[in-house]
Every structure is written in structure tokens, then in C-alpha cells.
């Protein structure tokens, strides 16, 4: 039993080491921080230009839409960035135009939902505090990346 235990421990270690980069641990984090730094720079230089277009009320706050539609095409989100009002529960509709299934997932706002090929899905998000919230398609994480910006 001890032998098996040791073996399994070793294989776990190997497994963890082998998969660590895949979990956005080392290289990805570095890249991400780099990206974020440049993003921040850009944001400082032209904060308005960084944001996608959105309808504003007279105070400049985003107007809440009844539903926010995000489409998936070629394993990418369209739009990849949406602006939503902070402090409001919003309705999100994901339309998958690809023939392959996708899992819409976000650790930042704790959502997870499978959308079948050619299918649609509805979910509620928030209320979110002001900030940026990443989401991604778990089955195609390399390309399917998106951001919800709560203002």
C-alpha cells in the first residue's frame, strides 16, 4: 500500500507539473500581467477609446439593456467586450453560431454554462461592482476570451 501511495504521489506531482502551464500559471500569467500593464497604459492615455461603444445616460453611466447578446463565431466572442452598469442584475444571452458546443465560463463573475452547437443560452449576471470581469469559452480557451466592464 505504501508503495502504491508513493507511486500515486509521484504521478500526481508529475501531472501537476505537466499541467501547470496549461492552468495559466507561469507563462500565461506573465503575459497577462504584461497585457494588463499595456492595457492600463492605454487606458490612462485614452480611457474612452479603450471601451466599446455604449449608450450613456445624462450622468455618463451606461444605460441598462434588457438583454446583452454575445455571439460565438469561429470560437471567438462577438462582441468580446461589453459595458454594463454596475450594481444592476443583467441578462446575458449567448448565441453559439459555431457547430461545436462551447462552455461559457467566468471565474470573475462565477458563471458556467454549456451552449450546444448552434444553440442559445440565457443567464443572469451580477449585480457587479465597478470593474473588469473576464469570461472565456472553456472548450476553446485560446481564442474565446471576453470581458465585461461594469461602470
Amino acid at each position, binding site marked *: *500500500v*505504501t508503495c*502504491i*501511495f508513493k507511486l*500515486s*504521489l509521484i*504521478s*500526481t506531482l*508529475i*501531472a*501537476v507539473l*505537466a*499541467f*501547470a502551464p*496549461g*492552468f*495559466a*500559471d507561469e507563462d500565461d500569467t506573465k503575459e497577462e500581467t504584461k497585457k494588463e500593464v499595456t492595457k492600463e497604459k492605454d487606458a490612462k492615455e485614452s480611457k474612452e477609446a479603450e471601451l466599446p461603444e455604449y449608450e450613456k445616460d445624462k450622468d455618463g453611466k451606461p444605460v441598462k439593456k434588457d438583454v446583452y447578446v454575445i455571439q460565438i463565431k469561429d*470560437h471567438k466572442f462577438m462582441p468580446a467586450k461589453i459595458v454594463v452598469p454596475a450594481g444592476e*442584475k443583467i*441578462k446575458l444571452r449567448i448565441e453559439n453560431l459555431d*457547430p*461545436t*458546443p*462551447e*462552455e461559457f465560463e467566468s*471565474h*470573475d*463573475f*462565477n*458563471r*458556467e*454554462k*454549456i*451552449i*450546444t*452547437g448552434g*444553440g*442559445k*443560452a*440565457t*443567464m*443572469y*449576471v*451580477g*449585480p*457587479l*461592482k465597478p470593474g473588469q470581469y473576464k469570461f472565456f469559452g*472553456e*472548450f*476553446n*480557451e*485560446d481564442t474565446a476570451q471576453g470581458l465585461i466592464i461594469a461602470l
Partner: protein
Amino acid sequence: MSIAVIFFREVLEIALILGVVLVATRGLPFRGRWILIGLGAGLVGSGIVAYSAGAIADAVEGVGQEIFNAGVLVVAGLLIIWTIVWMKSHARELSERIRTIGAQVIEGRRPLYVIAVVICLAVLREGSEIVLMTYGAMLSGSTFTELVFGSLAGLVAGAAVGAAIYFGLIRMSARYVFTVTSVLLAFLAAGMMSQAVNQLTQAGFLSVLTTPLWDTSSLLSESNVVGRILHALVGYTARPTGVQLIAYAGTLVAVVLLVKRASRPVGPQTEQSRESTASEPELAATANPSS
């Protein structure tokens, strides 16, 4: 590579639950058979769920998936709680059986049905995702070798973590193993309830206390391996909402109260079994009056 990673993530959750359940049920007769039944039913079910994913998703105005997931989580969580209580009320027999191999067969096969169902549900949830992902990868033009090697690598790695948990727990002395596995199972159930509540929030059924209370993602992100393991084992969430916390704490409190109730009569064995018969009418069918 990505196939292996996704396989690993999903298998990890199944393997961790399986590891804890295997330790918890150590010493029960015919448990291997029931675990295999649970695994088999889960695998078959995964295929069915994956195949009907579209129909499930479209049901109940587009939130069928959330209701399905929440249902699976709640049922699994309740059955795990039931298992903890059962273990507690049969603790003495169980530890006796572990210490002296070949002792009398423990009464009642009921908990083994329950364990089969728990394992089946765990496989069902994660397995259906694996099936869908694999299907998607095939459509996107992944080669057969990529699929086979990716899935095998992920499977082996996930199983290894589960095995590590199992062998780590099983090496403990019989005196502590019940307490430790009971505590682990209680956290597992609490995590499931909290996830179920989050599914209902996602579906829009809950709208109070749905803002995250705190954010520990900078300390421990759910996207790394440790975060994933803790998520699967104890329901770790970097940004829990108020309702999630209530569900989590409520489950733990309920388990403590139920276990206290189950272990209250310190008297003769007969009284204990009568007590559990009264609280669980289903048990009456299998309750063995021979003791």
C-alpha cells in the same frame, strides 16, 4: 494539450469525490460492485445528458441546464449528508469491521445504493461535459491520436490526484478515519449546496444577496490546480455570494445537528437502530432486527 487539460479538470472532480467516498465506505460488503454500478450508470447517463444538452438547455425558458445542475447537486449533497449520518450511527460496527477482517457483514445494503447514486451523479455532471468537449474537438478537426492521447493523459493525471487523496486518507488509523472522512464529506456536501445556489442565481431565481462578499482570487485563483482541487473537495470559491455562504454554512450546521442526533442514544444497539428507523422510514425495509 487542451483536450488533456479539460479531461484533467473534469476527471479531477470525479476522482476526488470517488476517493473520499471510497475511504468513507471502507469495510462495507459488496461496495466495489455498487461503485462500479454507479460509475457505469454515470457514464451511460453522461452520454444521454450530452446528447440531450440542447433539449435540457432550452427547457424552462432557457434555464433548464441550471435547474438540472442544481437538482443533481442538491440530490448528491443530500445523499452525502445521509451517508454521514448513517456512518455515524453505525460507526462502531464499521470500525470493528475494518479492524477485524472477516467480521460479520454489516447490516443493510441501503447506503451502497446511495453511494452508487452519488458516484453516478458526480460522473454525470462532469462526464457530460467531457462528452460534449470531445464531440466539439472532433468536429473542429482534432485527430484521433490527439483525442486518444489527450484524454488518456488527462484521465491518468486526474485519477492520480484522486488516488493520492484515497491512499493518503486510508493510511490513517481507523480511529480517525471516520471523523476525517465525515468532515470531508460534510464540506463536500456544503460545497455542492453552495454551487447549486449559484446555479439558481445564474438562472435568475435568486436575486437577494447575490453580490460577492469578498474576493480571494489574488490569494488563490479557481483557475489553478490547487484552487480547482479545493473547489471540488470543499467548494472553494474566490468570490462567494451571500446566498452561497448561507447555503454552505447552513449545510454544515445541519450536518452537525443531524450527527449529534444520530449519536445521542449511547445506550444499547437496539435503541439506536430504532431511532434511525424512526427518522428514516425508508430504512425500515432493510433494518435488520437481528441485533
